[in-house]
C-alpha cells in the first residue's frame, strides 16, 4: 500500500484514495462532430503502461478533490503529484 501526497491534504495512505484511470484525456468540446472512430478513441482507448504513467486520483475519503499523479506502475514509485489544470511535468 503506497502513500500519496495529496496536493491539498499532504501524505496519506493509498486506502483513502480512489484511482481514476489515465490522466489528460480531455472530453471533446464538440462530440457531435466526431466520427464513430474518433469518439471511440476518447471513450474506450486507455494506455496501460508498465513504467511511468500519468493517472487521475481522487482523495475520496478525504478532501474529495481530484488531482494527477505520475506513477511508475512497475514499482509504485510516485514521481510527482499536481493539481488538475496544472502543467504535467515531463518524464
Amino acid at each position: 500500500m503506497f502513500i500519496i501526497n495529496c496536493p491539498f491534504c499532504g501524505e496519506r495512505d493509498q486506502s483513502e484514495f480512489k484511482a481514476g484511470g489515465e490522466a489528460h484525456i480531455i472530453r471533446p468540446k464538440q462530440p457531435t462532430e466526431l466520427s464513430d472512430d474518433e469518439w471511440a478513441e476518447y471513450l474506450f482507448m486507455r494506455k496501460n503502461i508498465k513504467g511511468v504513467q500519468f493517472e487521475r486520483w481522487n482523495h475520496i475519503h478525504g478532501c474529495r478533490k481530484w488531482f494527477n499523479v505520475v506513477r511508475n506502475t512497475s514499482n509504485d514509485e510516485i514521481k510527482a503529484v499536481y493539481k488538475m489544470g496544472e502543467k504535467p511535468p515531463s518524464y
Partner: protein
Amino acid sequence: MNKNLRVKSGKIIDETYRISFQFNGKTYYGFQGDTLASALLANDVHLVARSFKYHRPRGIMTAGSEEPNAIVQLHDNSDRTEPNVRATEIEIYEGLVASSQNCWPTVNFDIGGINNFLSPLLPAGFYYKTFMWPASLWEKYEYFIRKSAGLGKSPTKADPDVYEHRYIHCDVLVIGSGISGIIAAKISAKNGFKTLLVEEKPNLGGSTIYQNSDHFKINNQNSGSWLDKEINEIKKLKNLEIKTRTSVAAYHGYNFLLARESLTDHLPIEQRKGKTRHRLLKIRAKKVISATGSIERPMIFDNNDRPGILLSSSIKRYVDLFGVACGEKNILFTNNDSAYETAISLIQKGINIEAIIDNREEIDSRLVYEVEKNNIKIFKGFTVTDTGGYKRIKRISIMQLSKDGQKVIGSKINISCDCLGVSGGWTPAVHLFTQSGGKLKFRDEDQTFIPDSYPSDQLSIGACNGDLTLDEILGNVPQVLKKFLNIEATEYANLETLSSTNKSKRNIWLLPTDKILGKTKSFVDFQNDSTAKDIKLALREGFRSIEHVKRYTTTGMGTDQGKLGNMHALGIISETADAKMGKLGTTTFRPPYTPLTFGTIVGRNVGEFFDVFRKTPMHEWHTDNKAEFENVGQWKRAWYYPKNNEDMHQAVQRESKAARESAGILDASTLGKIDIQGTDASEFLNRVYTNAWSKLAVGKCRYGLMLNEDGMVYDDGVTTRLDENHYIMTTTTGGAANVMSKLEDYLQTEWPELDVYLTSVTDHFATVSVCGPNSKKIISQVIPDLDFSDKNFPHMSFKNAKIGKINCRVMRISFTGEQSYEINIQANYGKSVWEKCMEAGKDYNITPYGTETMHLLRAEKGFIIVGQDTDATMTPIDLQMDWIVSKKKYDFIGKRSLYRSDTIREDRKQLVGLLTEDPNEILEEGAQIVADVNKSPIEMLGHITSSYYSPNLKKSIALGVVKGGKNRMGQKLIIPMEKKNINVTVADPVFLDKENKRLNA
C-alpha cells in the same frame, strides 16, 4: 516407550512449573517454556504426523516456523479447534489437547500408508494425468480427492475469539531479535529513533542466546552471556517497543508491513477469557532493518524423511534451550561446520553421539578438532545413502563419496541410531526482503541467494544478508548500520570477537546413492511429498520454468512455503537442466511468511461490524410494526409489513390495493439527495441529464435520466428547482454515492469554469411519501395552512411549508402513478411526521407499504428501476424512453454515444411489457425469452427483468428486454422453464392508466 529425555535444565525451561497436556488421547507432561514439539521429544515421541500424499510416518524436523511435518490439530472443550498448527511453535499450556492430522484411524496405524507402496503409480502430476478422463466422472473423482487431500479439519462453529487490528508508525522497524537484530535495535533506539523490535518466538536472542562454548566469544565472554546483557539493557530503553510472539507476515511497498501478534495462544484456556487472541499490526516504518536470520538446509538422500531425522541446528536448540535430547544414539550428517556446534552442545550435556558423517574430506577446523578430542568417530568424505526404520529411524547406511561427489564408492557401512541430525548449510531468510520487491544475487561460494538491491529505505543485516558467522556479523553489522541510520559512531566499533567456524562447505544438492534414482525416495518438499525423482520427471516431461516445475510437482506449495527444500529443488533443476543457479532465479515468495488465521485478517469486522448499515429516522416505527427489511446498498429498507401471518405475496397484494384504492404511505428517506447551488446550476443539469432544464420554472419538479459517457443509463430521479440558482436532485438509493462522485468528477476536471456547488444531503432529510386517491385529504390535515388545490399545487410542483414550527418541503411527484405527495423534513422529525400522517389517514385506511409494493405499483405504470430493468447495456432508446432525450441540446453526457453504430442497431435488446396467456401465471424474474423452442440451438432473445401479479389489473404483468422488442408488439414469445414452456405476448410496458388520469383524480 515413555522414556524421559530431559537431560538438564534448558535455558528457558522452568522445571518448577509442570504442565500436563494431551496428544493423540494420551496425557504427557512438560514444563513451562516448552513448545509442544520439545515436550513431545522429551517424552521420546517423534512420530507425530503422516505425510500428505504417501502417508509416510513423519516426525518433528525443526524447531521453528519452517516446520514441514509436525503440523497438528488443536482442540479444546469449547467450540475452538484449529488445524495446521506447527507443534514447533505452539507453547504448551495446561489443558492443551492436540492430535495428528492426515491419518486414519491413528498416526500409528494409518490405512493411507498403502499409498507408500503404490507410490510408483503416484508420480508428479498424478492428478492431472489420471483424472482428466472421462470428464463426466470428475464429480465422483473430486469427492475422493478432496477427502484424501488436505491436512487438518476446519472448525464448523463460529470463531469464539476476539481479534483486532492496530496501526503502528515508527522510525525504525527491526525484524528479528538474533544478535544482529538486538544490536540494530539498540543502536537505533539509543540514537533517538522511535524503534519497534518484533520477534516471532517467545524469547529474544535468536540462536546466539544459547551459545555456551569457548569457541564463540565477544570481549572475552561467551557470546550467549554477552548477548544476555545486551538484551537486559535494551529492555530499559524508552524509545524501543519490543513485541515477541509477533511474526511479520507481509512486507509491501513503501515500508508497509503486516505482522501477527499472538497474545493468548500460550495461556491456559481459562486465562484467555475477555482477551484479544491475535492482533494484526499494520506497520508503516520510515526505515526497516531485516534481521531475519537463516534457515538450515536439510540434505537430499534416500529415505531422508523418517521420524528421528531433524535439522542439526534444531537438535542443538532442543538441547540447549529446552534441555531435551532428541535421541540416545545420535548421528550427525553434515557438509559444513554447523553440525560440530551441535556435537559440542551434546557432549557438554553428556549425550551420546555415535558418529559424524561429513561430506568434506579435509577439514581444518577448531570445532572439528574439539569433537575429535572426545573420541567421536568422524567419517570424512562420506555420505548417507539410505536409512532404515519405519516409525522411527533405526539405522543409516553410509558410503564414501567419489572425488567429484557424483558417485558413491567402496563398501556400505551400516550404523544403528535413533536420531539423525542433518546440516546442508544455511539459506538466508530473504522471504520478506523479496516480498518488498528486493532483487537477489547468487553467491557461488556457499550457493546462496542474498539481497542485492533495495526497493525502499531498508537494510538486511546478519545471516539474512549472508553474514553467517559471528565474526562476519560483528564485523559488518555496526558498520552498515552507521551508514544506514546516518550516525557518527556505535558502541560496537571495537569488539573483540572469537569465532571458530570454518566456512568450508561441500555442497551437493542431490546426494548420490548406490541405487538408481527411480528406486529412491529423496524428499525435497517434505510437506507435499515431492521428491528429487518428481523434479527430474517434470524436467524430462519438458517443464523448464521453475514456476512451472513448482506447480507441477507442488514443491514449495505447502503451508511452510518450501522454507526447507526450495533451494534444493532449484539446485537439482540447475544441475539437470545445466542452467546457472543465478540465472535460474527463484520462485516468487508471496505473503504471508507464516500462515495467518482468518480471524486475524478480519479483526473486529465481524458480525454486525462486518459492514455498516444505515437506518432511516422512521426505522423504529417499521420494526415496531413488524416490517420485514430488505438491504438496498447499505440501507435497511422496509420491504413489506405482514399482518396476521400473511406471507410476502399476501401482504404485497393488500398493500398494493390499498395504495390505489385509498391511501398508502412509504418511507422514501433512503433516496439520494444532492443539493445543487450556483449561478451555473441549470447549465450543469443540462449537461448531466438527457433532457432540458433551463426552462424549468422555480417551484417545479422534473424527472431526469442520467447516462454514462457510453450512452448507457446510469441513474434517474426527480430534481426540483427550489430557487433561481438552487436545485435539489434525488438519485436512486443505491446509486447516491456514485452519482455524487461522478458529478464531482465532471465539475472538478471537465467543467471547472462552472459556478456550481454540490452537497450530499441524503441523511439530512427524512422523506414521507403519501399516495392514493385520498392522499390529498390526508396531507391537508397534516399541513392545514397549505393550499393543496390542483390549481395552486399541481402535479410536478413543490411548496415550502411548515408543520408546527418546522420547515419542510412538499413535492407533488409520483412513482406509483397515483396522486402523491412527498414531505421532506429535517431528519429528526421524520418519525413524528410519519406518525402524524398515519393518524391523519386512519379514517382512509392509510396503509404503510414497503419496497416490494412500490416495485409492483411502478411496474403497473411501466416505470423502470435503474439496475433492475437496466444493466450497463441499456440506452434510453432501448428503454423506449426517446421522449426524455433532448434533440435540441448541443451536448450532454452520453449524447454522442446514442448514435454509434452499435447503439443504433435495430436488434438491440429493448424494454417491453409481457403478458402471460394464463393471467394467473407469474413469470420468474431472470427467465430467458425465446421465439422458437424447436430449432436447436435455441436463440435467446432476452430475459424477464420485473414480474408481479397485479391485484389492481387482476393479472400477471412483466417487464423484460427482448431483441428488437419495439417491433415485436403483439408477437407471441415463449418463456422456456424447467417443466413447461410459458406462452407470452409482447405488450406496451405501461399496463395501467396510460393517460395518467389517476395523477389528478
